């Protein structure tokens, strides 16, 4: 059988596999990131890091639902200064590291993203889409739902950061393509679509209470895949910058669907729970198998096919 190449690129980021570890999964310390880095992924994204340490929400922070997970981690992280220790220990990791950051304002975003970009990372991903923040907080989704604010954040970060700037979008808006366009016009180099859906809720009927400590959580996993796929398709119709697909991907066929919808790479998270860390190598094998059978030589050859 003819050899196929799984390599792809997201702007100037070169990837040996289109499968990237999504932010928030196994990425709070160097040890686990190194382990995932040698498990077949093309790149790893760090936990979203803020200016200061944050404890996150009380447990339970996850609950399984049919074909998915609800999570309300709540941006727990040690803060950018402390996290540098972990990034320093990642020297020697051969694949690109994408540093995810969150903040509450354009100015704070440029500060945190600037500090992240000074570290051992190839790109920064701006988390303007985390749904797990409390009322009154201006993090995450509170920014990502407002096209003007997204543009201000991107501009502020781009004025400070020379490395690749990726914006991770929330699907919880009426027109995601509008937000995507706004990020592109402001100078974003790439987009990740999408963060978790929701909010969602699970109630334990014997306890008569919501299961999640924060009551609400973002929905991920196979249940959201068709919704995420539609987001990527819609965004790809409107923007020219590369899109990284994310949402419920658990197999090689899922990846190919996102490629055909217009993504140049994908992020995988929840599948690492459903199928453990071996899932990344398995997805790679499945993509290669599909490509061989259908005579695709490069990932690029499949990107956007569903639009033609």
């Amino acid at each position, binding site marked *: 059988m003819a050899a196929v190449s799984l390599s792809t690129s997201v702007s100037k980021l070169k990837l040996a596999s289109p499968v990237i570890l999504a932010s928030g999964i196994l990425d709070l310390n160097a040890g*686990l990131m190194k382990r995932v880095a040698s498990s077949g992924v093309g790149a790893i994204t760090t936990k979203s890091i803020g200016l200061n340490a944050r*404890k*996150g929400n009380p*447990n339970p*922070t*996850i609950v*399984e639902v049919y074909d998915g997970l609800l999570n309300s981690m709540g941006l727990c992280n040690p803060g950018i200064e402390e996290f540098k220790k972990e990034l320093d220990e990642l020297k020697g990791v051969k694949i690109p590291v994408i540093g995810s950051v969150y903040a509450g304002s354009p100015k704070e975003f440029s500060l945190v993203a600037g500090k992240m970009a000074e570290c051992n990372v190839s790109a920064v991903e701006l988390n303007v889409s985390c749904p797990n923040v409390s009322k009154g907080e201006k993090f995450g989704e509170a920014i990502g739902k407002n096209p003007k604010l997204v543009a201000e954040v991107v501009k502020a970060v781009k004025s400070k950061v020379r490395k690749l700037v990726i914006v991770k979008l929330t699907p919880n808006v009426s027109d995601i393509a509008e937000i995507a366009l706004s990020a592109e016009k402001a100078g974003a180099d790439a987009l990740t679509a999408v963060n978790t859906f929701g909010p969602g809720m699970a109630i334990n009927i*014997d306890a008569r209470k919501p299961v999640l400590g924060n009551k609400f959580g973002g929905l991920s996993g196979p249940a959201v895949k068709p919704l995420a796929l539609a987001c990527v398709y819609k965004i790809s119709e409107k923007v020219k910058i590369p899109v990284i697909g994310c949402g419920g991907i658990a197999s090689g066929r899922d990846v190919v669907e996102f490629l055909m919808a217009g993504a140049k790479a994908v992020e995988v998270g929840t599948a690492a*729970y459903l199928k453990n860390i071996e899932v990344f190598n398995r997805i790679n094998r499945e993509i290669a198998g599909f490509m061989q059978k259908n005579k695709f030589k490069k990932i690029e050859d499949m990107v956007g096919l569903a639009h033609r």
Partner: protein
Amino acid sequence: MKTLDAPEMVEILSVVKENSLVKTLTLDCKLKAKPGQFIMLWIPGVDEKPFSLSKINGSKIEVTFKKLGPFTEKLFSLKAGDKVGVRGPYGNGFRLAGSKICFISGGVGLAPLMPLIEQAVKKKRNVTVISGFKDKTQLLFQNRLSRLKAELHIVTDDGSYSRKAFSTDIFESLLASQKYSQVYCCGPELMMKKTLDLCLKKKIPCQLSAERYMKCAVGLCGQCCLAGFRVCKDGPVFTEKQLKDTEFGTYSRNAEGKRIPLHW
């Protein structure tokens, strides 16, 4: 339909006060679990934390815990008839191995070892148990231990009961004359580190039950990381080879993921 990984409300059948700080809850919970595995225990509206099992018998499980913070204080106040949420069991658990086995515990670290000790005795292994406690008021499972055909060494940090010594001191002195084929250990991390180092030096296989701040408990969030391991999924039981040359015994992590140095 498949069973979802979500808490199920179960009744507390009985509560035993082991000492001023430690209680054992018997839960009406059918659980196929191995010694060393753990459950996530949920008090609705409060929090959810990991607990090891001090007894497993098919239709019931027992959880023995020490009052340490707000959650265990709330747990300490619950009574028979109250309900708590349970999900699990999680983690790998201990693997019973060796013919001459030494169990070493510190304080309430005896709890997860207890069902394994009973299993080892039942299977006619040569069993030594070294249990250290803070003082005579904090002793645990003395009746359960005394019923077993095992060599017992109970010590206290202050000498208020039996000998004044740490369990690791006793282990070290026994090593001069005894050749163990397997060691199991659970207790404060620095005490486990001492045991780990002794076992590495003497080349004795050892299984230790580690602890880290835990959130998802299913291997996803990475909060309970220890080197390249997830304590919830790859552990909580690790071998001496896995823990060698890692941060074990040097630093732990708090809820923020920040490194917290360990001190005696």
